């Protein structure tokens, strides 16, 4: 892909980013209730003081101007002060982010690890009992409400059998110094294998809750992509060369079938960031998602606004990345 096409694609995402920011801006602005009143709810401010605050926040200016100010601030990472942390929203976001990214990556990797072999098997054994069983399981997987699935896992694996912890990110006695914020990395950097193990065990259930329904979806993509590739001439030609079945399937067929899979996986990663809110709440995972849910009930609107914008921008960017991956992996499309 040439630089100019890259720029062109990048340029196409700009209106979407702008639209997304506008909606997030309107979400807060058109909300019934005066943010100043909410902010001053617990203090005994005079109407004059409220007016001063309103002016300081720019709330007395016309909407378009306020949107521009909002955009300008958002670009510099200035989302105001988180009411209950009494710190800049951005700092709080960044602090919580590694936990969420760790969980999301674990989930998507798990999903791919499950989906690829199953999808390939279903495509190869097309229209057999195995294919049908797999499509039934995957339908089951996409019908599963995530929050309930998480609770079911807790009930079985934590409460009943005690294999995994009920929630949280690690045991309190195994905490290590925060370096990257990614616990799996930090524990290894600290050379604490016991803490690494604990982190991994805490990660298991939330990652499964988030990852398995995604695996169900991805398995369908793998199956249909693989099934299509298997009918192609180049697979026939590869077989005619006398290559082993494994080499034909895993190299010739899979490399092509993975192109749409990777694309969908990148987009799904964006959705998982949103799904995190539920899973983090269920498992008490100290990430961004749980923070957002808590902030909603604390009426900590600047943080909610910033987080929603962050999710949306990440999602748009991941869609863009998916597009790049599709072109990058596909030599035919590469220009």
């Amino acid at each position, binding site marked *: 892909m040439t630089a100019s096409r890259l720029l062109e694609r990048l340029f196409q995402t700009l*209106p*979407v*980013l702008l*639209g*997304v920011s*506008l*909606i*997030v801006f309107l*979400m*807060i602005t*058109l*909300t*019934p209730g005066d943010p100043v009143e909410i902010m001053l709810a617990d203090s005994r401010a005079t109407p004059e003081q409220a007016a001063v605050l309103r002016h300081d926040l720019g709330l007395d200016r016309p909407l378009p101007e306020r949107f521009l100010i909002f955009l300008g601030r958002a670009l510099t990472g200035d989302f105001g002060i988180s009411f209950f942390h009494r710190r800049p929203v951005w700092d709080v976001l960044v602090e919580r982010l590694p936990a969420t990214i760790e969980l999301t990556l674990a989930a998507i990797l798990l999903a791919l690890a499950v989906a690829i072999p199953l999808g390939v098997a279903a495509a190869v054994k097309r229209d057999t009992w195995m294919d049908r069983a797999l499509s039934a399981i995957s*339908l*089951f997987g*996409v*019908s*599963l*409400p*995530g*929050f*309930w*699935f998480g*609770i*079911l896992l*807790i*009930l079985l694996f934590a*409460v009943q059998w005690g294999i995994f912890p009920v929630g949280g990110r690690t045991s309190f006695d195994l905490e290590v110094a925060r370096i990257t914020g990614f616990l799996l990395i930090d524990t290894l950097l600290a050379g604490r294998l016991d803490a690494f193990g604990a982190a991994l065990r805490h990660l298991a259930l939330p990652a499964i809750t988030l990852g398995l329904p995604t695996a169900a979806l991805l398995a369908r993509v793998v199956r*249909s992509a693989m*099934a299509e590739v298997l009918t192609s001439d180049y697979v026939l030609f590869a077989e005619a060369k006398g290559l082993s079945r494994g080499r034909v399937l895993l190299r010739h067929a899979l490399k092509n079938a993975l192109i749409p899979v990777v694309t969908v996986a990148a987009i799904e990663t*964006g*959705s998982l*960031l*949103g*799904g995190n*809110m*539920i899973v983090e*709440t*269920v498992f008490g995972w100290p990430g961004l998602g749980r923070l*957002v*849910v808590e902030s*909603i*009930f604390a009426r900590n*609107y600047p943080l*909610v*606004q910033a987080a*929603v914008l962050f*999710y*949306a921008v990440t*999602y*748009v960017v991941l*869609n863009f990345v998916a597009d790049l991956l599709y072109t990058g992996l596909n030599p035919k499309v590469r220009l």
Partner: protein
Amino acid sequence: MSAAEAGALSPLGLGLERFRANRTALLAAAVILLFVLAALSAPWIAPHDPADADLFRRLQPPAWLEGGEWGFPLGCDSLGRDILSRLLFGARVSLLVAAIVICIAAVIGTLAGLAAGYLRGWTDTLIGRLVDTLLGFPYLVFAIGLMAMMGPGLHNIILVLVYKEWVFSCRVVRGETLAAREQDYVEAARALGAGPGHIMLREILPNVLSPVLVVATFRMAYVIIMEASLSFLGLGVQPPTPSWGSMVADGRDFLVDAWWVSTLPGLAILMLVLAINLASQGLRDAFDPRLHSA
């Protein structure tokens, strides 16, 4: 059905014939019907008032477990309310939200899709931009963000879900309309002097109804999960109205002592969503032969 009869049927009728031949889909449709009937007749068939608390029956197990009794077949929750009755009334919320959201979204999406696909030009650009923007949010983030601002409640859930949901039928209808635009019957209508309104609603609309139906059922499963998720987070229907999502949330604190409080409502969601997904798969196979192998 003979070939001659098939020739006489409309695409819709033909699709229904094919759907009726699909046993799994029929079974799924029966399950959905069962849920609908249960929801409609909840006030008459529910053994108790879903809001009736009785602290003596707090976390009473289902009838088949020790300590259960058949007067409260599925046991009671942490306030001693009958779970079966709450499940029946909860079905009303799930199905009501899903049905209203899907219907409104289908109407808006279809009209927007027709306009974008047929009129093209700035209408298409405007609608396209809006669709792209809405697709720029992960669904749950969009819904949670809006619910956070608008406040919980049945009314707001419906609004929030409609805001995003119309996009899906819009995209499908736009695509179909673009294709229909070039068809002879549209050309003919245009040549006869029919206006754009007439062509869109009278000529094209009947031909895009099947895909809209398929998309609507398929999305319905998703909307039910969305409503349950929002209610689970406490952003949905407010107590004392029972909703499956909030019932699961209520039971979370009692997993050790009373597994049934959380698991049973979740099972209800799973069964309904599974049935809808199966039925929509059957509909898709019946109505959209192009998607048969996909």
